[in-house]
C-alpha cells in the first residue's frame, strides 16, 4: 500500500489531474519533517509515525492516550476543568480570548488530560499534555489535574505515566503557574515515598517549567526519538550568548548521551516497553 502511494501521489499532484479540493478532507497529511504527503488511514495504523522518514508526528493528548491505553475500561479523571484567569492577564489579547482560541484549536478545556485505564491489562493512571492548547503550557488547572491524577494513583496503589509536551509554565498565570512546578514535584515525591512507579515519557518539545519539574522526575525517563527537551529554548540560548548550537543539541539522543534519560523508545514500542518496565518495577513490591 505504501509503495502504491510513493509512486502515484507526487505525479498526479504535479500533473494536476486531480484538483487538491477533490481530495477528501482529512485523508492526506504532510509530514512536517520530510514534507511527503501521507495517507492518513495508513498513518493511523503506523501510530502517526511518518512512513517515509520515521518522524514522530505530534499527537493530540486524547489520541495519545487512546493509542497507549487498552481500548476498554478507560475513564477520564478531573474532566471538564477550564483555566482560571487569576491575574486578569492581558497582552495584545486577554487571557480569556487566548483560552477561547485554544479551546477551538484543540477541542479541549485545558492542556492536560488524565485517564485511568489499563496497558496490556496492567491498571494505571496516565496523563498527556495537549500541545495545541496554548503550547501545552502548565497553568493552575494543569497542575491541579496532574496532582489529582497522582492522588488517584496513590489511593488506588497504581503506577502513573505522564506524556509531557509543553512550552513550559503559562505566562498568563505568572507566579501561580510557577508554583505548579513545586506542586507537581511534591506530588511526585509522594509517589516515590509510596514506592509507586512514576514514568515520564518525553514528547517533542518540552521546555522551561514542565521540563524543570514533572518531566525530569520519572523513576524512569523515556523520550521519543529526536524530541527536543531542555530548560532554556535554543533560540534564547543563541541570542543571549551569541553562539551557534551544536548539531542535535537538546534532542533525545543528546539527553541520553548526557545521562538525563534512561532510554529512547520508538512510538511503536512504547506501550510494550512501559508495560514491561512497570511490571519489572512492581514485581517485588510489598504493598
Amino acid at each position, binding site marked *: 500500500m505504501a509503495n502504491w502511494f510513493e509512486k502515484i501521489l507526487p505525479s498526479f499532484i504535479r500533473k494536476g489531474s486531480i484538483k487538491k479540493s477533490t481530495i477528501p478532507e482529512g485523508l492526506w497529511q504532510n509530514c512536517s519533517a520530510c514534507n511527503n504527503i501521507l495517507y492518513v488511514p495508513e498513518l493511523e495504523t503506523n501510530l502517526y509515525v511518518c512512513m517515509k522518514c520515521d518522524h514522530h508526528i505530534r499527537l493530540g493528548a486524547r489520541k495519545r492516550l487512546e493509542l497507549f491505553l487498552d481500548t476498554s475500561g478507560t475513564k477520564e479523571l478531573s474532566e471538564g*476543568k477550564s483555566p*482560571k484567569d*487569576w*491575574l486578569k*492577564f*492581558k*497582552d*495584545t489579547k486577554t487571557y480569556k480570548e487566548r483560552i477561547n482560541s485554544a479551546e477551538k484549536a484543540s477541542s479541549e478545556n485545558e492542556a492536560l488530560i488524565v485517564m485511568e485505564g489499563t496497558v496490556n491489562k496492567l491498571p494505571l493512571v496516565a496523563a498527556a499534555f495537549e500541545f495545541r492548547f496554548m503550547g501545552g503550557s502548565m497553568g*493552575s*488547572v494543569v*497542575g*491541579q489535574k496532574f*496532582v489529582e491524577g497522582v492522588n488517584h494513583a496513590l489511593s488506588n496503589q497504581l503506577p502513573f505515566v505522564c506524556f509531557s509536551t509543553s512550552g513550559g*509554565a*503559562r*505566562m498568563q*498565570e*505568572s*507566579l*501561580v*503557574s*510557577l*508554583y*505548579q*512546578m*513545586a*506542586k507537581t*514535584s*511534591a*506530588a*511526585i*515525591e*509522594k509517589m516515590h*515515598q509510596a514506592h509507586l512507579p512514576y514514568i515520564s515519557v518525553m514528547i517533542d518539545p518540552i521546555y*522551561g*517549567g514542565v*521540563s*524543570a*519539574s*514533572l*518531566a*525530569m*522526575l520519572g523513576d524512569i525517563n523515556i523520550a521519543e526519538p529526536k524530541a527536543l*527537551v*531542555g*530548560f*532554556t529554548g535554543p533560540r*534564547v*540560548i543563541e541570542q*543571549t*550568548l551569541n*553562539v551557534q*548550537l*551544536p548539531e542535535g*543539541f*537538546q534532542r533525545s539522543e*543528546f539527553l541520553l548521551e*548526557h*545521562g*538525563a534519560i534512561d532510554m529512547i523508545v520508538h512510538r511503536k514500542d512504547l506501550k510494550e516497553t512501559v508495560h514491561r518496565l512497570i511490571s519489572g518495577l512492581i514485581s517485588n513490591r510489598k504493598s
Partner: protein
Amino acid sequence: MVKSYLDFEQPIADIESKILELENSDLDQDQINKEVIDLNESAVKLTEKIYSNLSPWQNVQVARHSERPHFVDYIERIADEFDELHGDRHFSDDRAILGGIGKIGDYKVVIIGHEKGRSTEEKIKHNFGMSQPEGYRKACRLMKLAERFNLPLVTMIDTPGAYPGIDSEERGQSEAIAYNLKVMSSLRTPIIVNIVGEGGSGGALALGVGDHINMMEHATYSVASPEACASIIWRDSEMAAEAAEAMKLSANNIFELKLIDEIIKEPLGGAHRNYDQASSQIKNSIINNLERLNQIPLNDLVEKRYERLMSYGAL
C-alpha cells in the same frame, strides 16, 4: 557612599543635591540648618509618595538596583557566625549560589542564597546570580545536610533566573531544579524562604519551597523575567514594562494571591538606602518564625507544607 538614583527618583535627587549645595555654601549656619531641615522633610515626603505608588516596572528597577543589598550583605548583618561550605561534590563550586552554616539569633541554621556580585569582576565570578546545575546541586546537598542535623534552613532568593547556557543544558539544568523542588517539598526541617531581590523563574523557585515565605516590600517574583515574558508573549523584549505590569510581580499582588506569607517592610526609598535596617527587619521575621516553626512536630510541619503546596492554584 554616593547615592545613585533611578530615573523616577530624579525629583528626590534634585532636592538632595540642593541640600548638598547648601551644606557647602557660605551662608549663615543657622540659616543653612533651617533650610536643610525643610528640604530633608520634603525629600522624605516625596520619597514616601513615590515609593508608596511604584509602578510594576519601577518596582523591577528597585529590585535590581545596583546598590541593593545582596546575600553577602545580609549574611554580614543577620548571621553572627557564618562558615561557607563549598561545592556540589560532583562537578564544581557554583558561585551564583552560596551556602553555609550560620547562627541567626540563638539558632544555628543552614543558609543558602543567590549572590549576584557587585563590581564587574564579582558579577562575572558570581555569574550575575544565574546558577548552573552545580549551584542547585550544592544547595540540595546543603538542604540534606540541614535535614540530617536538624538544622532549620533559611534561603534567600535574588536571581534573574537559571543560567541559559549550553553547558548548563548538558549537565541537566532542568533536572537540577526539579530535584530541588521535590527534595524541599518533603525536607524534614523548618524552611524559611526570603525573596530579597529578583525572584526570576524556576531558578528562583529552586530555593523557594518552604514553611514561611517572606518577600521584601520591593522585591519581585514572577514566572519569568519581564524581558523574557515580553519576548515570549509580545515577541518583543522591549515590552518588558508591560509584561511586568501584566505578571503582577509585586509583593502586594502576590500577597493578595496568598502565594507568600509576609511582606518585609523596607527602609524608605528601598533596602539599598539602609542595609542595617533592611537586615534587621528580615532578621526579626526569621527569628520569630524559627521560634514558631521549631515548636511544630516535624510530621505536622511537612504535612502542612505539602497541603500548602497543594493549595496553590487549587480551584
